[in-house]
């Protein structure tokens, strides 16, 4: 870290527990919405690329909602980098794989 950044960090320190707490909340929300998106995709009978596009659109919607409702419109207060809300855990194994799991399950159930 350069000296200027170190100074910055000294003066306005980042409390690690709070960062962890915020990230956990993000992860929780995503782990709940990803399977739901999967169920929706499966019931709609979406195939390959359409399905993934649906997932991306859904995650985007979820990020917008997080921004408005949870972070109160000012993500800078809660997260170090601005893009954390949008990209954290979207492609991570937890949410993506649960999406695929639910999608496959309901695709098969509904389509027979």
């Amino acid at each position: 870290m350069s000296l200027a950044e170190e100074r910055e960090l000294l003066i306005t320190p980042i409390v690690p527990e709070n960062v962890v707490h915020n990230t956990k909340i993000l992860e929780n929300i995503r782990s709940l919405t990803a399977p739901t998106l999967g169920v929706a995709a499966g019931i709609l009978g979406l195939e390959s690329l359409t399905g993934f596009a649906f997932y991306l659109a859904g995650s985007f919607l979820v990020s917008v909602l997080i921004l408005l409702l949870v972070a109160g419109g000012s993500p800078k207060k809660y997260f170090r980098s601005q893009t954390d809300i949008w990209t954290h855990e979207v492609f991570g194994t937890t949410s993506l794989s649960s999406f695929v799991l639910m999608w496959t399950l309901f695709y098969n159930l509904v389509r027979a």
Partner: protein
Amino acid sequence: MADVQNQMILRDPQLFYWILFPITFVMILTGVLRHYATVLMQSEPKKQDLKAIREQRNLLHGISLRQNLHQLPFASFLSRKNHIVAAYKRGEYLKDPSLVGQSAPNPMTDPAGMDQMMGMLKNNMAMIVPQTLIMGWINAFFSGFVIMKLPFPLTVRFKSMLQSGVATRDLDVRWVSSLSWYFLNLFGLRAVFNYILGDDNSADQMAAQMQQMQPVAGANMFGPGADPNKMFLAEVENLEVAGNQHEWVLNGVEDRVLSMY
């Protein structure tokens, strides 16, 4: 060439009730069981004698001096640094001064090391055994047929892995056997475990694997194979280096506070 457009295979809906759901159910249950088994199997933290505690904590003290040195005025930091450096060089806090210069204790013979390795071994066992059992069970009962269609296409190379029991050439890769359902569950159920068991649960195999790859620095500092004297001397060097860049955080604080208003 078979029709790759849209291969449809009619399947008995009973397939789902008897195969898909049971596999998922069993995996969730084993995950929960594994979590509680790990919790129960954890051995008590070993009691350490006074000298060992003293050694560890004084080293931590030196480290926190180095990390937070900017909070103190320069004179206090300097006096503390000199005191600590002198003490470390003297080997004042060592648990067993006669060990200086000898090589680090072999993890096999050192009893503290044994405990730690046993703990790691137990955790690994708890992960591997249920996995192997379930895979064997699936191969025994649910092999030889395809069960479902993946909603997305994959390359041909996956065919041998995912259609394990069925030896056809033309069947679309999207039709898979129950083993691949097992794999899907393995990855996808992490979210469910996070939900029912709370974070930080032991049913999460992937998180455990990632943890193993990036060992937590603090926990292993005093584990087997660590030579305390070397660590003290290393800390001395770190302190000397860090001391050259001291900048009291209170310099200019009044201006900053005034500019807040």
